[in-house]
């Protein structure tokens, strides 16, 4: 890789850092709006006003808001996200336990989405001008109308309840345990050499990951199709045909390569959304991940967890976008400067 590309990537990373800081400000401010008083909630009902005031001081709530933010940010940078009000455990520990499950789920979701979306987009493109195009088109509009949390319920109804083919609760059958090594269940199964558990874990993952993927697939399909339609009218495609390049190669080498670029940058955004989609999918599949933790915390108004989880979600999205941008920079020669 040339030094130029490396410097572009470093610049892109530098752009992300202030954004992450702003994200933390936003999280902090929004959750200050809460009408519920976090102090009152963490005190026993018989506490006196002095007790409350003492705790306020201890939590730093009497300080100016910017000052409070500074303290909070300092703690975060040290890895201290506070203590859960409901569980009494450090938030960083709770998040650390649940995050790997969510990452695993989102990664599989993204994998499925790519594996279905890209070939689907090419298929949609190939069908252009045929009578079946309309049917497929309406089909993709229908798919667009089903968000991942409805897919999740729908897949449970079909594959879980009606066909009884696949499990739809948790990550493993209740009678099976795997020692926690990395937190990534599939990895742990392999590390402990437990192949049965590995297959079970995959079976448990299939439905939630598919639900996540199906929410994203129609978007990828449609964008790839329309990019291909744009590209196919470009002069260089005509010129390739005029040079006698076979049609198959024209599509695969000349058109697809260019059409994939905009699709790729959309996928970055979509995978960020997909990561957010884990929230409800985890709730529906009783999947012990970050989303489940957060929804639970929302129901309990467990502020420290909400803050921590929101922050992690935002950081995850920024990281995903960053990663996709880096890939985009590497594969797109147009970003290299004119010499």
């Amino acid at each position, binding site marked *: 890789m040339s030094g130029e590309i490396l410097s572009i990537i470093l610049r892109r990373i530098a752009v992300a850092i202030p*954004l992450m800081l*702003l*994200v933390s400000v*936003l*999280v902090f401010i*929004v*959750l200050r*709006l*809460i*009408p519920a008083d976090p102090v009152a909630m963490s005190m026993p009902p018989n506490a006196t006003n002095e007790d409350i005031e003492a705790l306020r001081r201890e939590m730093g709530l009497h300080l100016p808001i910017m000052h409070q933010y500074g303290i909070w940010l300092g703690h975060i940078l040290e890895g201290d996200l506070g203590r859960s009000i409901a569980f009494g455990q450090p938030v960083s520990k709770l998040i650390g336990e649940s995050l790997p499950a969510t990452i695993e789920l989102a990664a599989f979701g993204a994998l499925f989405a790519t594996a279905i979306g890209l070939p689907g987009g090419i298929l949609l493109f190939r069908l*252009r*001008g045929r009578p079946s195009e309309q049917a497929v088109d*309406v089909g993709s*509009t*229908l798919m*667009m*109308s*089903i*968000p991942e*949390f*409805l897919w999740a*319920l*729908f897949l*449970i*109804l079909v594959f879980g*309840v*009606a066909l009884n083919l696949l499990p739809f609760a948790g990550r493993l059958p209740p009678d099976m345990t795997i020692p926690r090594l990395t937190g990534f269940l599939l990895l742990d199964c392999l590390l402990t050499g437990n192949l049965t558990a590995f297959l079970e874990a995959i079976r448990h993952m299939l439905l939630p990951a598919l639900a996540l993927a199906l929410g994203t697939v129609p978007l990828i399909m449609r964008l790839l199709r329309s990019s291909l*339609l744009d590209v196919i009218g470009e002069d260089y495609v005509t010129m390739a045909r005029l040079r006698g390049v076979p049609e198959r190669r024209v599509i695969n080498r000349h058109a697809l390569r260019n059409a994939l670029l905009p699709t790729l940058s959309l996928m970055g*955004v979509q995978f*960020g*959304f997909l*990561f*957010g*989609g884990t*929230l*409800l999918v985890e*709730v*529906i599949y009783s999947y012990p991940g970050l989303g489940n933790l*957060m*929804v639970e915390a*929302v*129901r309990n*108004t467990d502020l420290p967890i*909400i803050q921590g*989880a*929101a922050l992690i*979600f*935002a950081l995850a*999205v*920024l990281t995903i*976008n960053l990663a996709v941008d880096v890939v985009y920079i590497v594969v797109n020669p147009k970003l290299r400067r004119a010499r």
Partner: protein
Amino acid sequence: MSAEIAIGAATGTGERPLRRALRSGRVVVGGSILLVLLFCAIAAPLIAPYDPNEQDLLNALKGPFWSDNAEPGFWLGTDNLGRDTLSRLIYGTRVALFVAVCASVGTMLVGTTLALLAGYFGGVIDWLISRAVDLWMSFPPVVLSLILIVGFGVGIGNVILAIVLVDWTRFCRVVRSEVLVIRRQNYVDAARLSGFSHLRTMVREVLPAAAPLIITLMSLEMGIAVIVEAILSFVGMSVEASIPAWGVMIADARNYMYQSAWGLILPILAIVTTVLAFNLLGDGLRRTFDARLQQH
């Protein structure tokens, strides 16, 4: 090349946009479904057979009329408290459509205004607005709406506000890039040279050119608003418990899906149908307006 231009000029114009839109099957189907839903929402007290909150514990978890454990009178069955599913579905359209309309108008106003400013003036204004969009987009929409609702508290007004605050970016990003394209058209410069103020130029020259896109986006946004509201009511963070909403029905029915799968399927179908109608309408409008797609 010129041949295509000639054909385009012959057929592409002269017909009023509305009539052209009505020739699209998508617009007609989507629009018809929405009219039916709108009628349900407005006339709910007249057409719903029961009060949506009326409980009949003796007739709990009944199936719809085509199933084995149907109970005459409850056409689409009942939920675990014996409330009539059909009535609850009909009343549910009220929340769904109200949120859809208010939230999409709100996102449109906020998003379009900022997009116009950013795209028209460029420079620092554009930079600031674009960075704000980046910042917002780094929260998954569901997560952001959830923490906003935690901040604001539940209630239909807060749900709408949360959706506007989350989704204005979607509008802003797309409309901004459209405005950038329009801005490069010479007629915008020409208007300035005719003495138009910035405001007049934006309203008279730029906005009408972006209007088809805005209308299309609004239609799609309504679908999104329906989904977000359903998600929030599913986790119990939307409207008060006494107001029937489809998301609440799903959450209730989920615990009884072995006894009565239809109680879960029907509200899902209601949401999907509504969102599909908005998407068909939006898709049809986009195709009507998009000359490039017409040729294909």
